């Protein structure tokens, strides 16, 4: 995933050639279908790069017959999308009701107190971005649960959660 990202200056950190290739797969038969495909296209860009830059939005808009302005209207409305780059690691923190009653509120608090980040925030060194999920990750038996990159960590306590976050930060190679 990381190696696909180059030429940061040109595309707002996004490899625009990749976006163009991706968009070539979208072949709307008419204007209506083009409109219907916008959200799906944005999701693929967001999935691959972790966010959607203005430049990428322009490519999507051009292909599907809309404007970058409207695309930004969508990006800021739907919770899944980001318009800023993510850190090296990405954590989805389940804050569904199941996780709430099992103590996820405290975990959100721990994050703010110990690492100074809130929903959507990135640690100072760029190691970790945390997004609090208002919906449900579907692993309620493991509540409270987080998904770090591709792995789930369940039945967390304040201690095990802090240890997890500290480990991620410590083990991520520093930029300089």
């Amino acid at each position, binding site marked *: 995933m990381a190696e696909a990202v180059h030429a940061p200056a040109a595309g707002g950190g996004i490899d625009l050639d990749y976006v163009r290739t991706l968009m070539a797969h979208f072949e709307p038969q008419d204007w209506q279908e083009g*409109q219907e495909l*916008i959200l799906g296209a944005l999701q693929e860009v967001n999935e691959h790069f972790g966010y959607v830059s203005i430049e990428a939005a322009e490519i999507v808009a051009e292909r599907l017959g809309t404007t970058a302005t409207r695309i930004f209207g969508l990006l800021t409305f*739907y*919770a899944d999308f980001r318009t800023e780059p993510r850190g090296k690691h990405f954590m989805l923190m389940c804050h569904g009701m199941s996780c*709430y009653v099992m103590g996820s509120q405290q975990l959100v608090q721990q994050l703010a107190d110990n690492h100074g980040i809130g929903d959507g925030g990135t640690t100072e060194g760029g190691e970790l971005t945390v997004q609090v999920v208002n919906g*449900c990750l*579907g692993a*309620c038996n*493991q509540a409270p649960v987080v998904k770090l990159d591709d792995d*789930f960590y369940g039945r967390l306590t304040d201690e095990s959660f802090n240890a997890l976050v500290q480990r991620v930060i410590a083990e991520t190679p520093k930029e300089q």
Partner: protein
Amino acid sequence: MAEQTAGLPRLTSQKEFDAFRAKAIEKWQAIWSGEKTIVSVGVGSSSIPVGALNVLAAFEAIADQENLIVRKTGQDGADWTDVQARVKRKDAPAVVYRNVVASDAKGIIDGKHRSKIIGVEGDEEYDGHKPLNSLPFYKYQQRIVLQDVGVIDPDSIEEAIARGAYMGLYKALFELSAEEVIAEVTTANVRGRGGAGFPAGIKWESGRKARVTPKFVTCNSHEGEPNVYKDRRIHEGDPHRILEGILIACVAVGAERGYNYVGGEYPLAIERFRKAVNDATALGLIGRNLLGSGKNVAFRMRTGGGAYICGEGSAMMYSIMGVRGQPRTKPPRSVEEGLWKRPTVANNTETLSNMRDIVVKGGEWFAQFGTERSKGTKLMTVQGPMKTLGLVEVPMGTRFKTLIDEVWGGMRDGYAFKGVQTGGVSAGPLRYHQLDVPVDFDSLTPLGGMLGSGGFVVFDETVCSVDFARYLTAFNRVESCSKCVPCARGNPALVEAIDRIRFGRGSQSDLALMRRTSKHVIELSLCGLGQVAPMPLLGMMDQYPEEFQTHIDGVCPCGVCPVSAQSTVEAIAAD
């Protein structure tokens, strides 16, 4: 796409489908009557986090030397058994193991790990193990929607067809007229499973009668509530059932195209459903001239972007159309003017998942389950510190107490029951003494609860009702689409008032203020989200008035809210 669906013939007539089905059934029976031991592992969104894929791989690694058939299925709903494995030996019922880890694989085949056995399939005892159907979790269930979930491999259209998939569509294409299909649905009196409880038959009827074309059918699988995962599990366990329901609706209503709108946050559900759509298209069950019947149905899947409001009908349609999902005023209703301003029949996933059996077995068969006014079964999920957590399908009208104490096994050790939040973020909680009620569309409402989409959250004595009310109200505040002022401004005002109380700065006037603001939000909001947004808060205030009072007096009984921390600080300072 091509290689995914390789090997599937395109069926162009009724006869070819019959032949394909006969072959699929033969193949299915051959698996189960063979010499080999069959291991089925439940792989889904709640078992993958605890290593289901590793378990599957561990069995596959020893498959050759132990002479096994290893298959993946959806999860049968018993999340408390994750990872679940079913081992079926020749001439014996399948033995069900719970909490299997990868290193157990060899031992299970060798007959060890007997303590992990929860029972055997069927109704008979075997080898000293109880039948599954005698366990409370399974005993009260009546599985219609879930009958094949945990049985078939969700990625195999052949297994689905062997178990009866697309027979409802088949009947709707060749044996029944559109009017007859709708008559069966009306007889079944199946009410919308998304929460509103509107009869599907009436909706289909008005869709059928609409004069404008083209028409559309949308399946609402968004399920953005923070406590429900039933639709996701149907997608993961039996995607063809949903697809078939949508196709039946299209044929009955005369719609040109069906849509399924899935929340973008369910990668596995999307992946399995997409595979199902590709396979069905390859077989000729979607597209032009279905099985030579002359009927055309197109299909599209669309994904959302994580906005709870998109579960509202008109918001969902706007989201499909690629704009912000903000509800609009009604009328016109969606059956008159929906997607792309065309008549659109919108149903919930669970509603559509019932359609196969309603068409095949008839509306009267379906209507035998449930209560007078709520027919059929309901998928229900529970969350919180319960012993046997999971997704169940029980007849409408099952007693709430039975669900809590037996089906879901009561509270885990060390937790004391305080209440159960009903209706997601749209209603209030119930206390234990109120639980002696049947669970259906209408019985919970007078108590301040709601069936909603069937998600319940049990909370224990360590959860503060004021803090919980804040969580629920804050959810609605964040998820408000900000289109209309009462909801966009009212919900933040409510959160502020609750926060004053949580921080120990509240007064009696805040309680009155919250009631007054709630009234405004409920009466003046445009859509369903705003109209019910303050209900959880009002419910908490009605059920736990004493806790709100103690907060105003300066103490949080659970020690969760900031007011307690302050009083400790003040107490120390005073010391």
